[in-house]
């Protein structure tokens, strides 16, 4: 069957316009709103995003698992414990490693200038002329995040997984002790 690309494109364009039409015209006039967006773009890197995701995950995921009526009670309790453990372990290591790697990249991406040791410009792209721009800050965040992902390929196994396992077992044990004392 041949797909009519013009038809698909037309459908996509119409859908895109309809979605845009759903939103009202909004001009941010207050300095608060404008500053919020600007500082968010400048200051929220993947590390802060991981922290926000982790905090909001703790507020939603355990409750979703606790209300999962498709499984028996014991499995549900282990599932809740594992979810909490996974969020705590993942968020803590994820945030620390991302933040650490972004800081390391900042230290190793200094401007190419006289008197700056070569190793301190190891991550500086040669197309960059100015290092005090927002684009360069974002580049540092991106490079730091990618390096962090490589580091996390090892720490996921070396720290995350055993920590999740340790926390899960502790949380399950606490729950079992609580159940015994109630009986």
């Amino acid at each position, binding site marked *: 069957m041949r797909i009519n690309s013009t038809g698909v494109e037309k459908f996509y364009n119409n859908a895109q316009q309809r979605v845009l039409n759903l939103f009202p015209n909004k001009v941010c006039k207050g300095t608060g709103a404008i500053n919020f967006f600007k500082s968010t773009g400048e200051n929220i890197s993947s590390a802060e995003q991981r922290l926000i*995701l982790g905090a909001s995950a703790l507020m939603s995921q355990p409750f979703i698992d606790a209300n999962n009526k498709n499984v028996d009670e014991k499995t549900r309790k282990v599932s809740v414990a594992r979810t909490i453990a996974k969020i705590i372990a993942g968020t803590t290591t994820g945030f620390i490693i991302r933040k650490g790697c972004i800081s390391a990249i900042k230290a190793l991406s200094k401007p190419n200038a006289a008197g700056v040791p070569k190793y301190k410009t190891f991550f500086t*792209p040669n197309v960059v002329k100015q290092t005090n721009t927002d684009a360069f800050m974002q580049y540092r965040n991106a490079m730091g995040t990618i390096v962090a992902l490589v580091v996390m390929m090892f720490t996921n196994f070396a720290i995350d997984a055993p920590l999740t396992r340790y926390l899960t077992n502790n949380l399950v044990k606490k729950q079992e002790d609580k159940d015994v004392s109630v009986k």
Partner: protein
Amino acid sequence: MSALNNLFSNFKNALYKNYGENPGKMLVHTGVLGWVLSSLAQVSAIVFNDKISTEQKSFLIPQEIADAGVNILSFYLITSSFKRVASKLVKTGKLSTKPIREFLSKNGLNSPKYIGNRKFNIENLANFQDIKSEYRPFKNGVDVVASTVGSIISCNIVTPVLRNEYAAKKQKQALAKMHENEQKIVYPKGVSISDYQKLSAMKYSNSGYLKI
């Protein structure tokens, strides 16, 4: 060695060009990669945890695999959609700041013909440089907020609900299979279960103790 240097240099330049002015895109891309890697570790954590019973593993392993699959999908479908819509709102001037709107008015573009029209893009204007310093940080901020809200919705609400549905279905299938195998055990005719157990114990136990 110089080929490797060139490769690394090209990688740095590409990263700078692609993500330097688009942090929202970077958050979506690295988020997907991060979920893939962490899910791999989480699955192996369950597989090698001997304190979790086989029955619970039959639920938790598919739960984790579903978590990874749904996360990646929801990241692309929800997070990048949020980011795309937010980007488009800013690019078409529908969501803007006072200086951006004044810039559009000055250029005769502050009308419904342009504002909110998907074909209109402030970034393509000939004198875009005049507003770039005001526009770019605002757009980056909107992109980052949209990506973050999208990822909260996809990872913390949509994913847990969907993965639980999927994992419960998988657990039921796994348990049904386990019970099916149990029913297939055929005891020798004319021998009671206890006699059969004693015979097995004698046959397979070196020390003579019942091992079943």
